[in-house]
C-alpha cells in the first residue's frame, strides 16, 4: 500500500510548484470552441456545488458549444451509483463528482479515472491560471497519486471549524477557547441542564462521529497510518482523543447526543441550546438564515482549538474527474476546468455554499468583499486552510473504518472504556484493511 505520507505530499507540492515556475505562455487561451457540439453527462452529489453548476451551466455552453446534461443525486446514493457504473466499465457519465475522503484510494486502486496531468500542461486545453500550485496542499494531495500524477481536479473543501454562540459565552463570561483543554473547561461552565443549555454539541452517531473525532486525534499528534500502511487509530493519541471526546459529549452535551448527526447538532445549535459546535465549514448559511435559526448574528466562527501536539483542522473534500472509459475526454476536461474556475469558485464561496480549493479564489480581495456570510466565517475558512490536514486515512475500506471505530466511539458515550473499545474495533478492522489491500 502506498500511503500518503508527509514526504510524498511535500514532494508532490514541490513538484507542482516547480511546474508552475517552468511556466506556460501566459497569453494563451485554450481552444474553447474545438469540441463544440459534443454532449456531456455529469453525475453530481446533491448540494450547493451541484446547484451552482446547474444554475450557470449555460455560460459554459455559450463558451464552448458543448451541451451538458447534469444529474444531482443524494450523496450516499450517488457514491453507490458511481462505483457500480465505473466497475461495470461503461459508465453513463463523462464527468464524475467524487468524495475524496471516502473514494480517493478506491478510485486510484481500481484505475477508474483518467490521468489529467498532460491535459493540464497543454495550453490548447487549459487556461493559464489553472496550475496545480494554485490548489491548497490538501487538495493537491487528494487529487494526485504518489507519483505526483493528477487524476482529478479539487473542487470544494470542507474544513472543520468551531462555531460558538457569542451571547451564551458572554453571559457566562467565557472566552473563546484557544486550546482543547480550554474548550472543555468552557463547555463545562456553559452547561446548565436545568436551563436546557449545553456547552458543546457534535456528532455522536456512529460513522458520522469520526469526522469530529479526527479533529481531536490530529491535535493530539495522531497519524492514521505508519510508513508501512498499518492503521494507528488505537494508539495512545487515539485513546487520549477518545477520552476528550467522551468527556465533552457525556458531561457537556445535550442528552441523546449518541444519536446525533450534523442535522440534530445543528438543530440544537440554531435553537441556542448549545454554545459550541465543531463541524464542517459549510453550515454558515442555515445558521445565518432568520427563517431557520434563532442565533442569527450571534454566531462566532473560528478554527478548531489547538491540542497538546499541534493545531490542525480535519479536512475533507470533493473533486471532479473524468472516467477512464470516457470517450470525450478533452471536452470533459474543459468542463472540469470550468467547474473549478475562478468565476464558479467565487459564486460558491460568496453564497457560503462551499469553499474552493484554489488559493487564488479565497485570497482574492474582490471575491472576499462579495461574500454574504460574516467576515469571521471567511477568515475561519482561510485560517483553517493553513492548518488543514486530511481528516480520514486514505485507504479503501474507509466506510468500514468509520463504522467500526465510530461504533467504538459511540459506545464510550454509554460509559465504555476508550482503550478497550478502540482495541476491540481494531481487532475487527485490521483484517478488513489487510484483505482490501491484498485484493
Amino acid at each position, binding site marked *: 500500500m502506498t500511503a500518503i505520507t508527509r514526504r510524498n505530499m511535500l514532494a508532490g507540492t514541490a513538484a507542482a510548484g516547480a511546474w508552475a515556475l517552468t511556466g506556460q505562455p501566459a497569453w494563451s487561451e485554450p481552444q474553447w470552441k474545438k469540441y463544440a457540439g459534443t454532449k456531456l453527462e455529469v453525475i453530481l452529489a446533491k448540494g450547493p456545488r451541484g446547484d451552482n453548476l446547474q444554475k450557470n451551466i449555460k455560460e459554459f455552453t455559450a463558451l464552448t458549444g458543448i451541451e451538458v446534461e447534469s444529474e444531482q443525486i443524494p450523496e450516499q446514493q450517488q457514491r453507490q451509483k458511481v462505483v457500480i457504473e465505473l466497475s461495470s466499465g461503461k459508465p453513463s457519465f463523462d464527468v464524475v463528482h467524487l468524495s475524496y475522503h471516502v473514494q480517493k484510494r478506491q478510485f486510484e486502486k481500481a484505475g477508474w479515472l483518467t490521468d489529467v496531468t498532460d491535459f493540464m500542461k497543454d495550453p490548447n486545453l487549459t487556461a493559464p491560471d489553472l496550475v496545480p500550485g494554485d490548489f491548497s496542499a490538501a487538495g493537491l494531495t487528494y487529487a494526485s497519486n504518489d507519483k505526483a500524477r493528477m487524476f482529478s481536479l479539487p473542487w470544494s473543501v470542507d474544513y472543520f471549524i468551531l462555531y460558538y454562540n457569542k451571547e451564551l459565552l458572554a453571559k457566562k463570561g467565557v472566552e473563546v477557547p484557544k486550546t482543547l483543554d480550554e474548550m472543555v473547561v468552557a463547555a463545562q461552565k456553559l452547561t446548565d441542564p436545568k436551563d436546557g443549555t449545553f456547552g458543546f454539541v457534535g456528532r455522536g452517531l456512529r460513522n458520522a462521529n469520526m469526522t469530529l473525532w479526527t479533529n481531536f486525534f490530529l491535535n493530539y499528534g495522531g497519524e492514521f497510518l505508519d510508513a508501512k500502511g498499518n492503521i494507528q487509530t488505537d494508539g495512545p493519541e487515539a485513546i487520549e482523543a477518545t477520552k476528550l471526546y467522551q468527556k465533552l459529549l457525556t458531561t457537556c452535551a445535550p442528552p441523546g447526543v449518541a*444519536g446525533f448527526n450534523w442535522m440534530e447538532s445543528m*438543530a440544537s445549535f440554531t435553537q441556542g441550546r448549545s454554545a459550541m459546535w465543531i463541524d464542517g465549514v459549510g453550515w454558515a448559511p442555515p445558521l445565518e438564515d432568520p427563517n431557520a435559526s434563532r442565533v442569527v448574528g450571534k454566531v462566532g466562527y473560528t478554527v478548531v482549538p489547538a491540542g497538546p501536539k499541534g493545531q490542525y483542522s480535519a479536512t475533507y473534500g470533493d473533486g471532479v474527474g473524468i472516467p477512464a472509459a470516457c470517450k470525450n475526454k478533452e471536452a470533459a476536461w474543459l468542463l472540469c476546468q470550468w467547474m473549478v474556475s475562478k468565476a464558479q469558485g467565487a459564486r460558491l464561496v460568496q453564497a457560503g455554499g462551499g469553499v474552493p480549493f484554489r488559493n487564488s479564489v479565497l485570497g482574492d480581495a474582490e471575491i472576499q468583499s462579495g461574500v454574504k456570510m460574516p467576515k469571521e466565517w471567511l477568515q475561519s475558512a482561510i485560517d483553517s486552510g493553513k492548518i488543514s490536514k486530511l481528516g480520514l486515512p486514505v485507504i479503501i*475500506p474507509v466506510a468500514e473504518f468509520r463504522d467500526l471505530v465510530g461504533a467504538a466511539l*459511540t459506545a464510550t458515550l454509554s460509559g465504555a472504556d476508550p482503550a478497550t473499545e478502540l482495541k476491540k474495533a481494531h481487532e475487527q478492522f485490521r483484517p478488513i484493511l489487510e484483505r482490501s489491500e491484498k485484493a
Partner: protein
Amino acid sequence: MSTIVEQVSGAASEAAAPERALRPPSYWPFVVPALVTVLAVIIFPWLFTIWMSFQEWKVGSPTAFVGLSNYLRLPADPRFVESVGHTLSYTALSVLLPLVLGTLAAVVFHARFPGRGLLRALFIMPMMATPVAIALVWTMMFHPQLGILNYLLSLVGLPPQLWVFHPGTVIPSLVLVETWQWTPLVMLIVLGGIASLPTEPYESAQIDGASTWQMFRYITLPLIMPFLFIAAMIRAIDAIKSFDIIFAITQGGPGSASETINLYLYSVAFVYYDLGYASAIAVVFFALIVALTALLLVLRRRAQWNALGTDT
C-alpha cells in the same frame, strides 16, 4: 350434396385426427411469457446470489471462488450476530403491538356510532403516508431537546426520554413508529373478519347472559383467529424486511443498537462493496424469512386442528 359434404368433412376429421394425436392440445405457449419473466426476475437472481455467495467479490477487484468461507465468517461476525437479535426483537414487537391495538380498534370501529365513517378514514391515514417522509417527521419529534414528544411528556409530569438516541430505547421507539403506521392495516383486516361473522352466536350468548368480554373472548376471538393469522403473517414479513423507517431515523444507530440484518446487508453490499459476503447474508436472511413464514403456517394449521378438535 349432403353426402359430399359428409365425405369432405369426414376426410377433414380423419386428416386432423393423427395430427391431434401427435400434438396433444397444449397451452404451454401461453405460459412462456410468465415463465420467462419469473426465470429472469426471480429464479435467475436467486441462483446468481447463491453463486455470488461462494465468491470473494469486492467491487473494483476480480472475483475468486472461496467456497463456504463467506458463510463461515457469519457466526464470527459480531455485527451480524447482533443484527439477527435486533431483527427478531424488532419483528416480534412490530407484529405484536399492531395486532393487539389493531384488533381493539377493529372492535371499536365495528360498533355503530355517529361519525364512524369519518373516524375510520382518519384512522387509516398513517398507512397511506410515505415511510421515509414519516421517518423524517418522527426524527424531529424524537429530538430529546426540541422534539414534541418530550414536551408532551413534560405536560403530564414525566421525565424526558432519549427515544431513538439511546441504545436501550431505540428499538421500542422505532417500533412505535411502525405501530403507528401499520396498526390501521391490521384493523382493516380484522374489521373485515368481524363484519363477516354470523350474528346468531351473539344473540344466543346474550340470551345465556354472557358479558361483552365473554362474548369477545369466546366468540369473536376464536372466529377471527384466521384473520389474525393472516394479519400476523403480513406484518411479520413486512417487519422483518423493514428498512426505510430504521434507515431514515437512526441508520442503525446509536452505535449499532438498531442495526437489523437488512441494514447490515445494505452496508456490506453498497457501502463496503463486499458483494460475496453480502450475498451470503442475503441467503441466510432469505432462509430466516422462509423459516418464519413456515412457522406461522404450522401454527395456523395447528390452531385449525385444535378448533376442529373442540368442535367434535
